[in-house]
């Protein structure tokens, strides 16, 4: 499944993560990650994002993630919200 619309979720406040998903021309998942704890937790954050995207069956997508120290469940929540918004039928209230 591919994303055909751009959507955002989250904020740049402490303990949160800002996620923007958008259509990608290329096959696969492209992830650009910025984080205040990139050196310590970059791999874990990346894995959480990719796992959440895969669980939704999305295989073609571009993701920008700007992390401010979010816990795993916050990362999952923000990614799922961005995907819900990008994949929702027009006019559907989420």
């Amino acid at each position, binding site marked *: 499944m591919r994303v055909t619309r751009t959507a955002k*979720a*989250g904020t740049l*406040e*402490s*303990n*949160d993560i800002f996620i923007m998903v958008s259509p990608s021309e290329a096959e696969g998942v492209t992830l650009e990650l910025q984080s205040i704890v990139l050196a310590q937790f970059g791999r874990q954050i990346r894995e959480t994002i990719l796992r959440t995207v895969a669980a939704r069956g999305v295989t073609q997508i571009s993701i920008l993630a700007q992390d401010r120290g*979010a*816990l*795993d*469940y*916050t990362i*999952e*929540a*923000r990614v*799922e*919200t961005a995907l*819900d*918004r990008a994949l929702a039928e027009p006019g559907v*209230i*989420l």
Partner: protein
Amino acid sequence: MKRLRRTMLFVPGNNPGMIQSASVLGADSVILDLEDAVSLSEKDSARKLVTKALRSWSFKTTEVTVRINPITTVYGPLDLEAMLEVQPDILLIPKAEVASIQEVEARISAYEAAKLGGEAVRTKLFALIESAAGVEHVHEILASSPRLVGVLFGGEDYTSDMGVARTMGGMEIEYARNKVAVACKVHGVDAVDTPFTDVDNHEGLLADARKAKAMGFTGKAAINPRQVGIIHKGFAPDPVEVRYALRVLEAMEEAEAEGKGVFSLDGKMVDAPIIQRARQMVALAEKLGMVKGSTASKDEKNANDSLEGGLV
């Protein structure tokens, strides 16, 4: 003894940092808010975040309440459905009137039948009464669901509905407060008073909390973590009264040992209502760690370190 709800602290449901720290702020209950604290464009985001937090995050011993959106809005049923999947301790139902509580009750019952094979969810309900109709029908509201364990009175929306100004003295909400407190006592549920909105006025908050306690409220809502300790102080038993209650119970034991049915203390006759009140006071004081040798948790004792008079 049932759980204390001296404070119910509102926490915005779309703020990860505040949700993470909710359990260390000292409140007896935290209200993760999906309604007024969340803009219309972020309802989905907050609902998802709160759902994930309830699945993954430990709130330790703090009771977790979630305020959903009114069941009459498009968001209310979505919130309710999502929350039943994770079953917080309490759901706070805003704009509570008989019809809205019945609607929530019916939806929960349908969920239990369809998803749980008839097994009951653990989640209880709190009615947020914040309209003139809600106040006038408080008894009917409390009778409309067996899951209700309390009422939170919302003074701001109530006065807005009445078309009257909110004042420091609170005369305009006196009738509603009295009615809610008495109705809750009749139905055996908690009565939680409206928040004090001037967060920098600590003396005013303490006086308002003491007034609510005197009216029969069991607790008060808080909108800022700094209000929690002050409200607990306002709802703490007076050490002088606790000492007297302990003496009443001692005198009662002596009288029973001597086979006396009625006895006096300090020249005044002690009868059943006084003994009942003394038992309730001592039970609460023990729970708060105000009585030496009580079994209160370290957290509860620490929370009461600032009480006037200390241990009895």
